[in-house]
């Protein structure tokens, strides 16, 4: 893996490593995890050569000017007790973008952050689990920040946007990073204390999906219904046309109808 460490710094309880270029910040953070680095070790890279979203199949365009980082966590409680864990990265990103830029950044279930109809940020969580406990979890967040839509490859035309495109101003990436990290730490504390209801409350406030009629596309079937709420494990609760309720835990794509 190509890695060019630019600097490392301690900001409160965050130990941040800044790289010029990585294949992915996720892989570097997992490497750090394996080497025994402590919780809240942060890996930031100016660019990623192989940025990706969920399940390694979705590429994430990661040029200079974006905020690409991963956070190493070592949850002390059993993995199945981490209620709200899948929700807290996207809440932290959307909330911070709103605070810093004034943009109406919202979350499209499960973990896309959008402005208008276009994606502006995404999150991913990868964990290594032995029996009931995570050896580590690595939370990855990518934000299209200081570059314009014209920089995106053609297949992302009309699908992705950036903070610069929407605000006309460059933002300070380190300011956004620290804001997100502080929000993550607050929410993570709630998760560890078992206060998942507060996480769900915050998610609902920032959700673009709740209340909408949606179609869930998966390999097995397509389901249409009204998005009612998310459950504490991050599942989307749909009300179907016959009044029944369906819990959606996995999906390939969600589209608004």
């Amino acid at each position, binding site marked *: 893996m190509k890695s060019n460490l630019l600097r490392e710094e301690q900001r409160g309880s965050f130990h941040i490593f800044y790289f010029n270029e990585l294949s992915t910040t996720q892989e570097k953070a997992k490497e750090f995890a394996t080497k025994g680095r402590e919780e809240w070790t942060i890996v930031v890279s100016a660019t990623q050569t192989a940025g990706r979203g969920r399940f390694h199949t979705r590429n994430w365009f990661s040029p200079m000017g974006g905020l690409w980082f991963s956070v190493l966590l070592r949850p002390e409680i059993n993995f199945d007790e981490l209620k709200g864990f899948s929700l807290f990265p996207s809440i932290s990103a959307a909330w911070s973008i709103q605070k810093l830029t004034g943009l109406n950044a919202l979350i499209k279930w499960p973990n896309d952050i959008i402005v208008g109809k276009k994606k502006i940020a995404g999150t991913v969580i990868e964990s*290594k689990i032995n029996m009931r406990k995570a050896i580590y979890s690595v939370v990855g967040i990518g934000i299209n920040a200081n570059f314009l839509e014209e920089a995106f490859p053609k297949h992302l035309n009309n699908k992705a946007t950036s903070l610069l495109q929407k605000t006309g101003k460059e933002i300070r990436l380190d300011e956004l990073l620290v804001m997100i990290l502080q929000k993550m730490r607050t929410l993570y504390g709630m998760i560890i204390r078992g206060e998942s209801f507060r996480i769900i409350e915050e998610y609902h406030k920032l959700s673009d999906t709740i209340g909408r009629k949606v179609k869930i596309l998966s390999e097995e079937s397509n389901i249409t219904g009204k998005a009612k709420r998310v459950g504490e494990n991050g599942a989307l609760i749909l009300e179907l046309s016959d009044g029944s309720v369906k819990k959606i835990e996995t999906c390939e794509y969600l589209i608004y109808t």
Partner: protein
Amino acid sequence: METTISHHTNTTPIISPIPGLILEIRVNVGDKVSQDEVVFIIEAMKMENDIVTPVDGIIKEIKVVAGQTVEIDTILAVIE
């Protein structure tokens, strides 16, 4: 301390720590595995989870298939 359930036959089950979808099975019956080696990948709660073996041993039995949905505590495989 990690929980290891041992039976009289000296076998150890690998259990699913969460409900989810088996994305990938990285071993076959008869394979030798080392502690902390990734043997299953489960998608759960919108996250990707590498499930590792808690002990060294040989895969005696695999009880799930890729694409299957599992509940918490489902025995995924048995190591001898």
